[in-house]
């Protein structure tokens, strides 16, 4: 459901292929398969949480734009993920406006 909410909020004109992962482990598999130029990362997940994914990504050179999308709105969590290489933090529930703004701000999504 978290993934459906996010996908619904992505700009419809954004020409990308979407790969979904149900937890951090699946996300790392997709990342290693070269399927994550941009990663929307939740923090609260089974198997492997978002902090652990960021840690693993740092060890593997972090070749991806990571945008954390989480309900964990503690200021420390936001600081921590940015220190760990995430480019932005978006709090849940996500809206299309906020996602588009972040994507534009970081040049991830160029307006056509």
């Amino acid at each position, binding site marked *: *459901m*978290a993934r459906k909410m996010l996908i*619904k909020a992505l700009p419809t004109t954004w020409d990308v292929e979407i790969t979904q992962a149900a937890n951090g482990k699946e996300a790392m598999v997709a990342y290693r398969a070269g399927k994550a130029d941009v990663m929307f990362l939740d923090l*609260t997940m089974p198997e492997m949480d978002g902090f652990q994914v960021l840690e693993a990504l740092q060890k593997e050179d972090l070749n991806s734009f990571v945008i954390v999308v989480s309900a964990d*709105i*503690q200021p420390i969590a936001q600081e921590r993920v940015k220190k760990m290489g995430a480019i932005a933090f978006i709090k*849940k*529930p996500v809206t299309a406006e906020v996602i588009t703004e972040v994507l534009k701000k970081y040049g991830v999504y160029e307006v056509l």
Partner: protein
Amino acid sequence: MSIAPLSSDQRDALQELTNIAMGQAGASLASILDTFVNLSVPRTNILGVDKVSAAISDLVGRDFEITAVRQSFQGYLRGEAIVIYGQDGCKELADLMGYDEELDKAAERELLLDVSNVLVGACLGGLTEQLKGIAESDKAGELSFAAPSIMAESVPVDTLINPDKLSWTHALLMEVNFTLESRNFVSHLIMLMPEEAIEKMRGILDEFIASF
């Protein structure tokens, strides 16, 4: 009255709504304790009331001695919120907040009630806020609380709930827990809702799922 289990889509939707709600509770707790709080993945289930006590024991850990606060809520949904701490929950919170030896038992209890009230209010408030956004009925945003009260102090977890005293047949059980990195502290926030609230919740979850 027979109650269908949640479908996997309904459970998924409820977990996500709970996740968003607990994030607000976790942020409140982090701010009270001035430390980083780890949030669990929410767990939800529909059970016959005779199974509730065993389910809570499983979530908290069998043979665990606990202190617990309860607070009932009503509005569009109704039920009981229970916040479970370790055996010395009162003292643990007082220590975490830097009160050391200064508090007497009554003041510790008051602290426990206050913190529990904040957790319950933030979580249920957050949940209701989202239900209101999803549901067609304006009534989905209605929510009021009774005052919190201490339900048990230093008792084995399996004695917390006596099913004979519940007039419900079924309960929707939702659980989240908060742990700290640096200290041995855990707090479980459990919400229980009876059958008619389950069906209202199911209706909202179905509306939510249909919106995708």
